[in-house]
């Protein structure tokens, strides 16, 4: 990767164009009345097509993707994105389809939705899915709307609280707040699982339900799930399953069987669609049969959700087929446990035992701190990994540990890649013990070194015009 410093605006020269449009064959339409017409200048770049292609190619070369290298970002499931899916999503009969065409004109697209509905129901044990949500957090919000609608339909209006474990993704409490629900936190035990005894007193008739990931954000299976489901249901609440951690359960365990009533899936994690630097995703929401009636009232996006993403996920399911499905779950769990066992002599493993698709270290065992020299932190380890050509794990999440380093390898990485990662992690631990300053200054080999984030927030420059 090399540093490239231009912004597209800086390539602009008056009179250059990058477009080619047809000749105007029509008589001129009447001018817009002055009071509704734009009169201010329009500051967009004026650049040629080659300028554009070279500029964005140069920008891309300062980026790291799954196709570049190993991306063990915990909770993000950065698996390989199959290329045939991209080809299919670009077909003109899909790509050129207007969302308001009636069913007679969109038979192929509707078939994709029907087949996906069947497949996701088989995979999750849910009854029916809505495909409107455009991302995981959007799915959470939709699922909570369904939860509230269910209680409203029964005339039970006092259920305004939702229980969220302290280890949950930040989107869980945030989605609850957007949905008008009050968040009640339930503590985790020392073994990383929900404290069932702490849960019991929270379960009264003001509780709409509980949001859980299983395995949780520590990568640990919630072994008490059967008891939790029973308790929540007896109290009149519903169970929401956050599908962010569905990958290890693929082909092995179904949320519906564990007692969950509502769930979302992140197609851009578990079902291999590319993350695109932060989206587009898709967060279809599945419900158990008794909640099917709540689906039609809830409209959370403009048309039919992110169809292009749903189509890619459908292609992925067809390529895997029933025979290979289980391997997704098994291999993702195998790789995580293999890394954990290979590094736990150098990195603190707070909770022993078999993990699922990911696990959390709590920093280095020997961080090299001595005299006035501070020890190497999780941030330092993460930044040093970049020097060695790996993406960093998720850091400082979950919030249960101060030096959390959350590693998720996925099933699409070879043993050779994983071994190389382990070797580098061991080397970094040695470096930290010998000279933590080397890590404080990392990364050394990336297009930029650590930027001044405080200055960015204190004196916000949020557009080209601000800087000039």
């Amino acid at each position, binding site marked *: 990767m090399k540093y490239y410093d231009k912004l597209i605006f800086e390539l602009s020269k008056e009179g250059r164009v990058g477009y080619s449009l047809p000749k105007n064959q029509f008589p001129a339409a009447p001018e817009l009345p002055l009071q509704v017409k734009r009169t*201010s200048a329009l500051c967009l770049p004026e650049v040629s097509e080659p300028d554009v292609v070279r500029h964005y190619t140069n920008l891309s070369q300062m980026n790291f993707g799954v196709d*570049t290298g190993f991306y063990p970002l915990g909770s993000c499931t950065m698996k390989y994105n199959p290329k045939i899916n991209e080809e299919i999503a670009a077909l003109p009969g899909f790509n050129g389809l*207007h969302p308001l065409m009636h069913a007679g004109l969109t038979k192929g697209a509707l078939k994709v939705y029907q087949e996906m509905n069947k497949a996701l129901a088989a995979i999750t044990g849910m009854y029916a899915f809505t495909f409107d949500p455009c991302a995981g957090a959007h799915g959470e919000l939709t699922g909570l709307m369904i939860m509230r609608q269910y209680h409203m339909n029964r005339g039970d209006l006092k259920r305004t609280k939702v229980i969220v474990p302290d280890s949950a993704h930040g989107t869980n409490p945030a989605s609850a707040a957007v949905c008008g629900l009050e968040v009640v936190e339930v503590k985790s035990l020392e073994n990383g699982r929900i404290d069932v005894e702490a849960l019991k007193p929270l379960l009264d008739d003001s509780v709409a339900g509980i949001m859980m990931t299983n395995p949780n954000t520590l990568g640990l299976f919630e072994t008490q799930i059967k008891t939790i489901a029973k308790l929540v249901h007896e109290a009149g609440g519903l169970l929401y399953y956050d599908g962010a951690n569905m990958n290890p359960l693929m082909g092995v365990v179904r949320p519906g069987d564990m007692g969950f009533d509502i769930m979302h899936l992140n197609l851009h994690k578990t079902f291999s669609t590319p993350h695109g630097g932060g989206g587009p995703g898709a967060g279809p929401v599945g419900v158990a049969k008794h909640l099917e009636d709540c689906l039609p009232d809830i409209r959370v996006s403009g048309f039919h959700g992110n169809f292009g993403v749903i189509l890619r996920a459908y292609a992925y399911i067809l390529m895997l087929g029933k025979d290979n499905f289980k391997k997704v779950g098994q291999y993702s769990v195998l790789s995580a446990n293999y890394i954990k066992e290979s590094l736990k002599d150098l990195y603190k493993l707070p909770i022993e035992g078999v993990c699922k698709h990911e696990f959390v270290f709590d920093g280095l065992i020997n961080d090299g701190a001595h005299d006035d020299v501070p020890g190497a932190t999780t941030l330092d380890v993460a930044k040093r990994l970049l020097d060695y050509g790996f993406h960093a794990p998720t850091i400082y999440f979950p919030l249960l540990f101060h030096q959390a380093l959350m590693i998720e390898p996925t099933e699409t990485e070879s043993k050779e890649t994983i071994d190389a990662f382990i070797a580098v992690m061991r080397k970094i631990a040695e470096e930290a013990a010998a000279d933590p300053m080397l890590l404080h200054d990392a990364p050394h080999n990336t297009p930029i070194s650590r930027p001044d984030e405080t200055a960015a*927030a204190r004196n916000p420059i949020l557009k080209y015009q601000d800087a000039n």
Partner: protein
Amino acid sequence: MAPYFPHTEADVQSMLEKAGLKSLDDLYSDVPSEFLRRGAYHLPDALSEQELRDWLHSLDSQNAHLKVFVGQGAYDHYTPSVIPYLTQRSEFLTAYTPYQCEISQGTLRYIFEYQSMICALTGMDISNASLYDGPTAAAEAMKMSISCTRKKTRVLLSKGLLPHVIKVVETYAKFHGVEIGYVPVMNGQTCPNCLKAELAKDDVAGVIVPSINRYGIVEDHSGFADAIHAEKGLLIEYCDPSALAVVKTPGEWDADIAVGDGQPLGLPLCYGGPYVGFMAVKKDYMRKMPGRIVGQTADKEGRRAFVLTLQAREQHIKREKATSNICSNESLMALWVTIYLSLMGPEGLREVNRLSSDGAHYLYDELVKTGQFEEVFPGKPFLKEFVLKPKKFPGLMQQKLEKAGYFAALDTEEGYVSFCVTEKRTKAEIDELVKIIKEG
């Protein structure tokens, strides 16, 4: 073996050994056995890549391949070939959110460019890095107006907003606990006097009005901002960003928030998504804005660098106190928009509007000449989209058009039919479409 799993039998064995386990089943020893599925799922057999391609080509061909003369929130503008070419670069496509900024400067820079371009189009101070789509951006603006004002509980929607925008905002409002009021359309435009009557109730946090409404009419919002600001509410403009090259901008209307869908900026129709919602606001509301924001700073060597900033608004820091729950957005589609606007520049975007508007006015005049339609809003200014009232039931006409390869004359709730012309539509196509309608 499936192509996406690199594990050989030997790999599996040696990895299990290192983990101190005997079989793959042992990986799930912590799962109560009643939840373990032993058999295969009820899923199709695995396809080869060739079989997959053939099957999806066959589904693709079951969709109608029509020339599109309808808009209503999804516009068939031309996508220059450079855009899919560049956005398919795997460094953009297969990257995650730019949390590790040292190896994400590509993503961070284009988002910064995107924010700059959205501000240029809307005439606003600050843009975020994108939201899901136009309707959800409007819903976020609805929530934001509540949190930016004091003791105001109601948000007004113009009935001129596209129907799908109204539905999504209503859904969010219902669960967020916000009351919705409506401002009717009179003479083809959001009624200023009705707006003032609603504002007099002293409970209005925000008002969402369309820059171009569901009838295609470019609205005149003179006096709106003053009236709303006098009651301490926020003016929210819902816009077609392509049209902002020529119509008065939210900034020029003195709006507080601008939202809309970036789809008209070169994004394929793709049955409704992925699209990209945009939001831009006045400086005062910077810390109330939902979603990610990229800012400029410098690295240790003083080189220009870009980072995610003002994150104290976001869910991963603030949890239930965040300005929104949004995490993943539509980053790659923001890149589509950025490349589109780079290629078009100010003159290209104006020319797209000229071609679309000239074509739409030509179609309008020709349709009126057939004698089969009544004008609904004669003399009102429009660009690429308009409605007419068919004199007889339009079902047969629509079927004939479909058969001839045209998707046009979409029914509206009001009993009108809606048409849209973009720069992709030729005079020959319009003449044929009119001929079919004329023949009845």
